[in-house]
């Protein structure tokens, strides 16, 4: 428990605060006591030597009469002229020494009235401190001259003062990662701290100061209440440390819980964050307003942004407003439209819109369950460029926990950990933000993700189990359970659910490997590859790991660690793609699984096939195979969410893969992914994922059947794909100055039976057909194919053989030349 202070004038409020628990009384009392000490010392030392032409002013917190128990005392010694100040240097030194001897920590400045009414671009704090100046003792006429000058100075330099003040505030916010949710916040400096409360007051003073005077501004009751709470905390921290310490450390949090009988620490820390949030929101709102008002360029931009408005939402001063908020009563979907607007344009919600949503939240909570296709709506929002901002807005308005009550207990939750800097909810939001702003080689991985909403959902819930009752499996098991309930409630499709639950379940796996396993050991890599099963999962988990680690604290994802993660990714990626060729399904696997009828079809396919296809898909493929026996080939085309998929089964023959790729190219389709495998009996299963840029299949349903039939004919060798392509304009080969330089590499060591060809080049229509044709034309057989596209880059991996063996050197050279020609890379 805290005890009374050792005494001295500097700590008089220490005892008052402990006796009353009232910070405002303690602050006022210390101010009065210090006023008395300063006035007495001035009367005895300073004023006898300088009876006129000098005055003592209180500035800063002291000027505002807000002296915390161990705060510095900011004094301004005002002199008529610089010459007089120099003459009285020794007197000033003696005066200050008396104050130090009295136990006061003085921060003084010596100025003339003229200097006080000058703009100090490099010492903006001086100008700001004068907003709170107060006469203590000395030459009243001299002070009157300053008091007359100051309002005129403020009026004339309002814009510069606001700009400097805003710059200081933004720098301070950035230093703390622009978030108030620190596990051990500084109650003065952290965003949402006392400094921000003062910022609101100063900006209000500068904005509203009438020509003749500067007045302390009144703040909203919510802010005044928050100030009282933080002031009480700061007093406590000073008393606890016996010095000007403002860090709400874990030890201090426990001491406060004990002293004030405030219940558990987590509960009252939530109270702290609630008050800090009120201050921070006020500060940011006023900063935005002040900066916008002082920048004509911003005004123009703001005006331009106002054109983004639509029938439901208007944009005014860079903020989104609801045109008819009363519609929220009847149309809960309007809330989602509001966040979609934020996610699309990066425009934050206005304070009014936030309040309108928050006011209807209890009712909205009940209505969210009635929104049909909620997952589809959320996925649309979370796939947009400013999705992290929308999620943050959803969090701040309470909509996020309205949609997902499972996340409620991680709100403002402090989990003590040496490395974590933020509360659990803030860590989650920072992780999501990091995923969108990801850099280095991980940026390419991120651009390959076609459904970022799955990653976002996984990150949103990855730590949701923290703070929930701990059971076996720790917070990860809890997170999986909560995510599963939420995903089922919003009717997330089973396949999507499987991915997000996998990511949550494994979100610590790569970190654990980096920390406790030799990442260069092939056993470690194989073990990871076995767990992750597919390249797609590896990519997603790598991104989740990157986002999670880098949200622990700003320095957590050091370049060293990022490099380690990238190496793990690369090695597991290589293990997974090599496994495509080497790891085949043995005949015993279907027998052991109790499905003897599958032996003939599955034996010899890569093991990856079993992992990436469900039982019903395998049954579908087997049905296609049955059809192909009668017709020579069987093709199925179906619509996926954002693309089309063609699956074909046929007896293998030279040029088959090229024929299928050529058919799609002939129809103007753009292949984005492809896989081709053959089983032990020489039956091939090829899957093509393709886009239909001209919407041919959507707009002409009969074309779908024509494409399917034609593909079957080409594959069965009854139509010539070259004939089909002859009628289409030949796409230009990429120039030698293409943005993505083409690379063709051969690797005979990666596989025991085939040569691996890896081609990275700029994507273009018909590329895959040209590559596959070049391979077939050179007498090579395609055993396995894995095609991927990231933005404009095609990454194609072929495992090829010639006469059942790896390629010999002459054929390798011929093929190298042919493939380079196709890619436009030259010989």
């Amino acid at each position, binding site marked *: 428990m805290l005890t009374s202070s050792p005494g001295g004038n500097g700590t008089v409020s220490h005892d008052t605060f402990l006796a009353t628990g009232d910070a405002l009384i303690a602050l006022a009392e210390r101010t009065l006591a210090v006023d008395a000490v300063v006035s007495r010392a001035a009367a005895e030392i300073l004023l006898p030597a300088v009876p006129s032409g000098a005055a003592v002013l209180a500035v800063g917190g002291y000027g505002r009469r807000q002296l915390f128990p161990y705060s510095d005392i900011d004094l301004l010694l005002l002199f008529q002229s610089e010459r007089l100040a120099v003459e009285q240097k020794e007197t000033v030194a003696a005066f200050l020494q008396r104050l130090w001897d009295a136990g006061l920590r003085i921060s003084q400045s010596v100025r003339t009235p003229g200097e006080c009414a000058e703009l100090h671009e490099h010492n903006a704090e001086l100008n700001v401190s004068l907003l709170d100046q107060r006469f203590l003792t000395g030459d009243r006429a001299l002070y009157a001259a300053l008091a007359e000058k100051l309002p005129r100075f403020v009026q004339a330099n309002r814009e510069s003062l606001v700009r400097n003040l805003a710059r200081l505030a933004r720098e301070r916010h950035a230093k703390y990662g622009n978030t108030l949710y620190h596990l051990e916040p500084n109650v003065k400096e952290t965003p949402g701290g006392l400094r921000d409360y003062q910022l609101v007051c100063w900006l209000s003073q500068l904005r509203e100061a009438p020509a003749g005077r500067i007045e302390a501004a009144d703040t909203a009751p919510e802010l005044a209440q928050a100030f009282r709470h933080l002031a009480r905390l700061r007093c406590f921290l000073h008393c606890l440390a016996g010095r000007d310490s403002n860090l709400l450390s874990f030890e201090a949090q426990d001491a406060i819980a004990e002293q004030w009988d405030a219940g558990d620490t987590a509960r009252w820390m939530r109270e702290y964050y609630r008050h800090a949030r009120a201050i921070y929101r006020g500060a940011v709102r006023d900063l935005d307003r002040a900066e916008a008002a002082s920048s004509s360029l911003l005004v123009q931009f703001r005006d331009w942004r106002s054109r983004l408005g639509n029938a439901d939402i208007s944009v005014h001063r860079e903020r989104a407003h609801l045109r008819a908020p009363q519609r929220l009563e009847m149309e809960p979907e309007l809330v989602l439209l509001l966040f979609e607007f934020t996610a699309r344009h990066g425009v934050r919600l206005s304070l009014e819109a936030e309040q309108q949503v928050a006011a209807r939240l209890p009712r909205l909570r009940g209505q969210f369950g009635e929104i049909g296709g909620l997952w589809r709506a959320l996925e649309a929002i979370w796939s947009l460029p400013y999705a992290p901002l929308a999620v943050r807005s959803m969090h701040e308005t309470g909509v996020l926990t309205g949609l997902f009550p499972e996340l409620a207990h991680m709100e403002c939750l402090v989990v003590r950990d040496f490395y974590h800097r933020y509360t659990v909810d803030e860590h989650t939001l920072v992780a999501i933000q990091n995923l969108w702003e990801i850099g280095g080689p991980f940026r390419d991985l991120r651009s390959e993700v076609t459904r970022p909403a799955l990653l976002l959902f996984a990150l949103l819930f990855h730590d949701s189990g923290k703070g929930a009752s701990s059971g076996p499996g720790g917070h990860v098991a809890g997170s999986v359970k909560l995510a599963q309930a939420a995903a089922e409630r919003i009717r997330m499709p089973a396949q999507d659910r499987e991915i997000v639950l996998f990511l949550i379940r494994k979100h610590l796996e790569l970190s654990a490997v*980096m*920390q*406790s*396993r*030799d*990442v*260069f050991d092939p056993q470690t890599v194989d073990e990871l590859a076995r767990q992750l099963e597919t390249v797609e999962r590896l990519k997603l988990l790598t991104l989740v790991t990157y986002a999670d680690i880098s949200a622990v604290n700003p320095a957590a994802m*050091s370049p*060293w*660690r990022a*490099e*380690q993660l990238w*190496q793990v990714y*690369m*090695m597991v*990626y*290589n293990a997974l793609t090599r496994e495509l060729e080497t790891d085949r399904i043995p005949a015993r696997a279907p027998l052991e699984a109790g499905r003897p009828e599958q032996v003939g079809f599955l034996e010899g396919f890569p093991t990856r096939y079993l992992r990436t296809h469900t039982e019903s898909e395998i049954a579908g493929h087997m049905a296609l195979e049955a059809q192909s026996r009668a017709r020579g080939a069987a093709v199925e085309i179906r619509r996926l969410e954002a693309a089309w998929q063609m699956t074909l089964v046929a007896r293998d023959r030279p040029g088959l893969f090229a024929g299928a790729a050529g058919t799609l190219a002939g129809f103007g389709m753009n292949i984005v992914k492809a896989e081709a495998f053959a089983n032990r009996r020489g039956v091939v299963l090829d899957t093509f994922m393709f886009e239909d840029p001209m919407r041919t299949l959507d707009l002409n349903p009969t074309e779908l059947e024509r494409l399917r039939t034609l593909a079957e004919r080409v594959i069965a060798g009854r139509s010539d794909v070259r004939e089909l392509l002859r009628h289409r304009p030949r796409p230009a080969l990429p120039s030698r100055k293409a943005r993505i330089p083409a*690379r*063709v*590499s051969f*690797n005979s060591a990666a596989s025991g039976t085939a040569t691996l060809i*890896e*081609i*990275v080049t700029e994507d273009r229509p018909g590329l895959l057909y040209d590559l596959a044709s070049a391979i077939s034309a050179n007498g090579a057989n395609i055993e396995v194919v894995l095609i991927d596209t990231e933005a404009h880059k095609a*990454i194609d991996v072929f495992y090829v053989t010639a006469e059942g063996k790896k390629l010999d050197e002459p054929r390798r050279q011929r093929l190298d030349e042919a493939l380079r020609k196709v890619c436009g890379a030259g010989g």
Partner: protein
Amino acid sequence: MKKIEAIIQPFKLDEVKEALKGIGIDGMTITEVRGHGRQKGHKEIYRGQEYNVDLLPKVKIEMVIPSGRYEEVLKTLAAAARSGKIGDGKIFVYDVAEAVRIRNDDRGEAAL
């Protein structure tokens, strides 16, 4: 007093820390470093592009201990950091002339 500087495999860090804690050594400085000795780097090919992994990630541990304990600390550290493979790292030992605890001016072993 001796200063011990050990370059070890990153995945051995927790084991080493635990082992040292077990013999009462808590104070140490850890740095993430890169380097190679006899364990040369290697090449990784990712999507047709070569990545030279010539400097491997390592962790550097530094600590100053009383001279009387350094054999015991060396043995414990080496045992915990050893996997038996190339790349396990190295330990260097230096003599330390003086140590000062800045907070209260303690000198010598009292400052450790």
